[in-house]
């Protein structure tokens, strides 16, 4: 019976694969953990995102406190209010919620506190959800025209209590209760300062809201039971409101907070990509382990080939092994993903106040499993294809070596099949990233960018290793034997030092880039606010009748350095750009918010800090509707000198020709203006003034107190407070990024451990020989420690250098100055060295326990 050549059955291949795996499971433990890390990170991030979206959708009405919300920055006209009343008669009730920032103080502490003020009609607000008060009472029973409810934070900062008198604008209130939570806090416009809530009916009496002021108004709508009788549902209501309030930003409960959902989508995409980096590293780890495994199986493969096995049959065996490792790692990753999903609500609690359960959702689990297995298979293509080149002749001559190219050729393969496999990996990776982020462009950039970063890191790591090799060539006699051995070990055959360095370096690079960018942003803000030439205190909503008095008061303040800069603000809407109505532009790539509402200012000569980059300024006496546009606004709206803009200010509409494009230096208040017009064009329009000055940061309180006493409706914003809010947000975002990027670093460590395990037999033999030659245990420990410390140190160096380069590019694009901390950079390198050392020892401590004779006798 001479069998005809057939196919190796999958079952048989699996049997062989399983036995082989069973004999080498320790070697693969680390790679399974690495895959688990990647899948865990991806599954956790996407699960949390999905559960968050579901929560948004399930609680959409509560989070909006209404069925529909229309946000506006303009006062309503009488016609609009009449039309809204007619809607009410058809079953669509409405109520106005106004939010702004203001100063507030109590008798116990006359120093004013910047607060987020909210005015509501407690008889109607909230339509859905509940305002929770400390007393347990209902809002409508507590909030009246002479009372206010305040958050716990206000009481703490102001050292005041329930029952104290609160001074807001031109009115005094009794603090009636402590606000625990409000359902629509997530939909709020302002989050600077603690919350103070008053009634809508008393708001005009405070004098805080006037034409042109930047208060945000949300008209909330609720469909009453009788709405159906009038043929009114959420779709018809939305259409009606869009007609009545064309400039408003309208959201209904079916959209589940589009701004937040959009932000969530973008964050999920970014964190998904970071998770994908972990997964790629894990897959590289599997590929490296599989390469090392195959090198140790050269003889087994040669036997199989000598027995007539075709390369494809042998590849089938090791493909099944890879698949198994991928699946086991991915399954463990799903379990780890549960932990990640549970960690996110804790990490996000200060950023988003929405109760989200940390649970796993099915689709991210399936996506995580598939991505984990697919990525692992993609990256093990090259080692599996190596099987083709394994020669069966090895069975007769042990010293038959596989073909070895130059070092550079080993890094960049020239075999066409290997090159095709690399192209397949890149295309596959781009496809995975595109699918996960739902953007082909992101996918392509991710694959290309990652390839670029890996190549740069690989070259950097190879260069540093070459430097060590060169040094050893010329200076080896200068080192003690153990140091020399530690250095030489970096070049150990099969050590894959360059790949390990790349993996560890990538982790260090990501962590350090996040650190550098986070600190540079905060530092830049701090430096700017500390500079005596840059304003650090801003005045908001100064009435035209108050301006002269405010200027005089500020000039008399000893804490104020320099003079008060002021800017008039006229609230406006853009009606058209170059004759095209904004309704048509909104569906194109134009910033919708800018088209809905904008602010105009005037100046008859170029203001301080403004530089004309195109065109020229108008004549001082000009009455022609002309406009100078800031460079960034012109870019966003695709405008140039000669373009026309149609504006509406109050009842007046006009078309202004662009005569100049200006660039601000950022040190003056006009830097915030987008459209500057001749004063005569805006004459007679409702105007509020903003002011800015620089004060001694330690004495801003004095100025606030004096201003509040004389002008309680003027809001003072101290940059230090804003900075604190920004810092908290940046820190929170950085913490989340660092949490996910931490998995990348961990994957790098795991790859190192895997590589150490793969070369364990060589290490055991070396240690046995050294011990037989009289080496002390401490000397051996020193030798291995030097190797691990060097690996980590070089990876840290490559990672930090790449992080510095990447951070400077990113920060340059953000227009933020970058002054890297060298002590932190050195600290990061040392931390990487310690991490590598600990990981290396965890993977190889048993080496020291082996007796030399046991090892050498087996030779």
């Amino acid at each position, binding site marked *: 019976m001479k*069998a*005809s050549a057939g196919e190796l059955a999958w079952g048989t291949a699996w049997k062989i694969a399983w036995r082989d795996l*069973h004999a080498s499971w320790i070697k693969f433990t680390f790679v399974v953990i690495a895959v688990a890390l990647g899948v865990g990170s991806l599954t956790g991030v996407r699960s949390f995102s999905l559960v968050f979206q579901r929560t948004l959708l399930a609680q959409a009405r509560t989070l909006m406190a209404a069925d529909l919300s229309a946000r506006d920055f303009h006062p309503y006209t009488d016609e609009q209010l009449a039309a809204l009343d007619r809607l009410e008669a058809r079953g669509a009730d409405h109520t106005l919620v106004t939010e702004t920032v203001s100063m507030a103080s109590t008798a116990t502490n006359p120093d004013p506190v910047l607060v987020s003020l909210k005015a509501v009609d407690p008889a109607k607000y909230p339509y859905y959800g509940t305002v929770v008060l400390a007393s347990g009472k209902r809002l409508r029973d507590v909030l009246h025209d002479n009372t206010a409810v305040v958050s716990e934070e206000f009481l703490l900062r102001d050292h005041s209590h329930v029952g104290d008198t609160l001074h807001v604008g031109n009115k005094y209130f009794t603090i009636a209760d402590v606000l625990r939570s409000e359902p629509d806090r997530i939909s709020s416009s302002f989050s600077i300062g603690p919350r103070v809530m008053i009634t809508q009916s008393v708001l005009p009496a405070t004098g805080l809201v006037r034409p042109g002021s930047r208060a945000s108004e949300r008209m909330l709508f609720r469909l009453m039971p009788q709405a159906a009788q009038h043929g009114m549902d959420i779709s018809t209501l939305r259409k009606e409101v869009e007609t009545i309030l064309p400039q408003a930003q309208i959201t209904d409960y079916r959209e589940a907070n589009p701004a937040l959902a959009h932000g969530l989508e973008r964050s999920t995409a970014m964190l998904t990509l970071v998770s994908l980096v972990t997964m790629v590293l894990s897959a590289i780890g599997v590929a490296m382990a599989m390469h090392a495994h195959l090198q140790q199986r050269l003889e087994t493969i040669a036997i199989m080939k*000598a*027995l*007539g*096995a075709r390369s494809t049959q042998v590849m089938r065996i090791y493909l099944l092994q890879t698949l198994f490792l991928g699946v086991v790692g991915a399954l463990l990753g799903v379990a780890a993903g549960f932990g990640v999903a549970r960690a996110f609500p804790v990490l996000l609690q200060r950023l988003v106040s929405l109760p989200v359960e940390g649970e796993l959702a099915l689709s991210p689990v399936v996506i995580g499993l598939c991505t984990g297995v697919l990525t692992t298979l993609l990256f093990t293509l090259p080692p599996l294809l190596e099987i083709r080149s394994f020669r069966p002749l090895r069975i*007769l*001559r042990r010293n038959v070596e596989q073909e070895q190219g130059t070092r550079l050729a080993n890094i960049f393969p020239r075999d066409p099949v290997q090159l095709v496999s690399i192209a397949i990996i890149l295309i596959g990776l781009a496809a995975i990233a595109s699918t996960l982020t739902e953007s082909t462009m992101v996918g392509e950039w991710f694959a290309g960018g990652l390839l670029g970063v890996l190549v740069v890191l690989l070259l950097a790591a190879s260069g540093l290793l070459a430097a060590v090799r060169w040094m050893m060539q010329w200076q080896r006699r200068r080192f003690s034997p153990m140091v020399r051995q530690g250095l030489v070990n970096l070049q150990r055959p099969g050590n894959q030092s360059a790949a390990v360095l790349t993996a560890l370096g990538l982790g260090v690079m990501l962590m350090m880039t996040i650190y550098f960018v986070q600190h540079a942003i905060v530092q830049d803000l701090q430096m700017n606010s500390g500079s005596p030439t840059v304003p650090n205190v801003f005045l908001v909503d100064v009435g035209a009748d108050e301006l002269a008095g405010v200027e005089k008061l500020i000039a008399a303040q000893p804490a104020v350095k320099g003079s008060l800069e002021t800017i008039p603000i006229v609230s406006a809407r853009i009606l058209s750009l170059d004759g095209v109505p904004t309704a048509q532009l909104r569906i194109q790539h134009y910033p919708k918010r800018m088209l809905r509402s904008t602010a105009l200012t005037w100046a008859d000569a170029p203001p301080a800090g403004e530089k004309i980059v195109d065109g020229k300024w108008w004549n001082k006496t000009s009455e022609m509707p002309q406009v100078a546009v800031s460079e960034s606004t012109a870019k966003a709206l695709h405008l140039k000198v000669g373009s026309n803009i149609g504006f509406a200010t109050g009842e007046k509409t006009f078309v202004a020709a662009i005569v100049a494009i200006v660039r601000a230096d950022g040190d003056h208040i006009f830097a915030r203006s987008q459209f500057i017009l001749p004063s005569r064009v805006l004459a007679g329009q409702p105007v509020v003034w903003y002011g800015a000055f620089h004060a001694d940061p330690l004495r801003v309180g004095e100025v606030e107190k004096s201003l509040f006493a004389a002008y309680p409706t003027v809001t003072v914003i101290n940059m230090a407070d804003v900075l604190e809010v920004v810092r908290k947000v940046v820190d929170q975002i950085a913490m989340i990024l660092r949490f996910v990027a931490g998995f990348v670093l961990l994957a790098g460590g795991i790859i190192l451990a895997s590589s150490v395990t793969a070369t364990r037999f060589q290490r055991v033999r070396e240690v046995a020989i050294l011990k037989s030659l009289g080496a002390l245990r401490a000397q051996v420990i020193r030798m291995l420690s030097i190797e691990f410390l060097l690996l980590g140190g070089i990876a840290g160096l490559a990672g930090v250098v790449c992080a510095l380069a990447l951070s400077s590019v990113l920060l340059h694009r953000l227009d933020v100055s970058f002054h890297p901390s060298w002590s932190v950079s050195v600290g990061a390198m040392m931390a990487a060295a310690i991490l590598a050392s600990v990981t290396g020892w965890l993977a190889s401590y048993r080496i020291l326990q082996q007796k030399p004779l046991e090892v050498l006798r087996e030779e």
Partner: protein
Amino acid sequence: MPSETHAIIAVRGLKKTLRSGSTSLEILKGIDLSIPSRQFVVVMGASGSGKSTLLGLLAGLDAPSSGTVTIDGEEISRLSEDALAQIRATKLGFVFQSYQLIPTLTALENVLLPHELHASDDGKPRAQELLASVGLAERMHHYPVQLSGGEQQRVALARAFMLRPPVILADEPTGNLDSATGARVMELLMELNRREGTTLVLVTHDAGLAAHAERKILLRDGRIEADELCQPLAQNVGADA
């Protein structure tokens, strides 16, 4: 010189040169030979004479620098790797000096492996029968590491005959064994060879083993120095050893 009629192995002008950097070493310098079916041939020679290289070329494990090798009428020197694998599977069985068993497979699984690679029917009865015939019926579920050298080589013998190949190539099959164990292994090899009716090409430098062959080829410095037919001794190898 033996007749070329019914030659199952035919070699013409076979040369093999190994290159290492700028230096090259000619291992085989032009071999011509023809082996008829069912013949027991011994290839002898000193270390470095080219015995193992010749065996590797006959097995298609290596490609010649020039010349041709024909196995059962098929010229194999320029075949692709997959086609060579097919030849090895269908026409050749191997026995190696260092046994070359797969350490993660049991004795039975090692013997079954060629069958699993190439056939779809149940090969287990044949594998068990072969293991029993080499005296390992009780040890078929042991792993190589649990077997002695002689036992491992007996497993390798059983594996070589698993797919009833017309040619068995053996490279120093007793080289790693003590003389008594080696003799027992050689007895089994010749017995299986006779029973299965195969052509046996055995590489050795053991003159004792060569005495049992029908034909003796002597290699020196990459050339055939002598090729003679001889009268084989009795099959009891141990008696001569």
